[in-house]
């Protein structure tokens, strides 16, 4: 078993996720979420941070207003998890790491 996005969505406080390889973007967010229509912004985020040498590690955490965005990178794949700041952050990172490790990269 590698981590699944289903496991991710079961974590209390996780609002949804965005999975992209730069060309295709899969958004799994409630339609009422402020970032549900931000497909292009996530693509740009992928372009900016997905490049080799653009970041020191493979996990980036951004607190934007009241949304915690955790980005996981592996090869050309980026998984962005959106959650409320009171989420079990370690569990979110563990699950995200497992999902990205199981992705085709």
């Amino acid at each position: 078993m590698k981590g699944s996005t289903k496991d991710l969505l079961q974590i209390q406080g996780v609002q949804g996720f965005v999975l992209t390889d730069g060309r295709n973007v899969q958004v799994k967010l409630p339609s009422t979420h402020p970032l549900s229509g931000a497909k292009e912004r996530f693509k740009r985020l992928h372009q900016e941070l997905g490049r080799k040498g653009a970041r020191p590690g493979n996990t980036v955490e951004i607190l934007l207003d009241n949304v915690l965005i955790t980005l996981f990178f592996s090869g050309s794949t980026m998984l962005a998890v959106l959650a409320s700041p009171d989420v079990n952050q370690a569990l979110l990172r563990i699950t995200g790491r497992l999902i990205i490790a199981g992705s085709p990269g």
Partner: protein
Amino acid sequence: MNKDIGGDISNTRVLEIVKILSLGKRTGRLHVTNGAETCNIFFSEGQVVHAHCSGLTGIKAIQEASAWTSGEYRFFVDEQADMQSVFMGTDDVLLEVTNHLRQMDKVTSLIPSPAMVYALETDIRESEVQIKAAQWKVLSLVDGRKSIADIAQLVGIASSDAMKIFYTLLRSGLIREVSSEERDTGVGPTLNLPKTAFIESLVAALTRAIGPIAPYVVQETARDITADLLSEDPAQRAFLVETIADKIPEGRMSLAFLESMAEKLKEERAV
């Protein structure tokens, strides 16, 4: 020349006595004592034919006794061996023992005696360490309490061979010396992990990834991040798991550990 000879090995070492008896083409038994340990080396017309010492026989027994720096010896003329365990010429025996003593000189510069006690080093410097089966047998018994001599006895090897293994393990950074204060106060290597289902599965998953050092890593990590191991707080447990996973040097093993513990954390959430 039929008179028994004897003396103190702090003046004349076992190797010297073997040389003298060999040159004199003597037949008999050389009996050497070092505290509670005894060694018997049998000669037949100057050739070493048999030796036994603290459960060891043959050349290993001679090597063991040759490293002794105190004790007494006595030569019993014409006592014959009832078996043969040394099958090389005396020159080769002397060469083997000399090489062994040379190695032991290097070893004792770092490990002065088999009474030394070592504990597993939790802070491993190397990202990858390869050890041999014999070294693993010894390492799995290192617990911060047993001395090198105790471990040698449990594994069934000579103390000097155990010292050589400890030397390699120490140089690889896998073990550390335990001070007498630590042993007296029980500080450091003493394990004090609660026996909860979570901790047991954590230790089991980590043992699969890094081996018998796992419980010590759990204990030290919990101390570093001031985690209460009895706490059922899911955030604290997940943080402990994540921090421990980061300490596993091999990426694949780290992921396997995370996978196993993520499953466990999920089960607990479902209860």
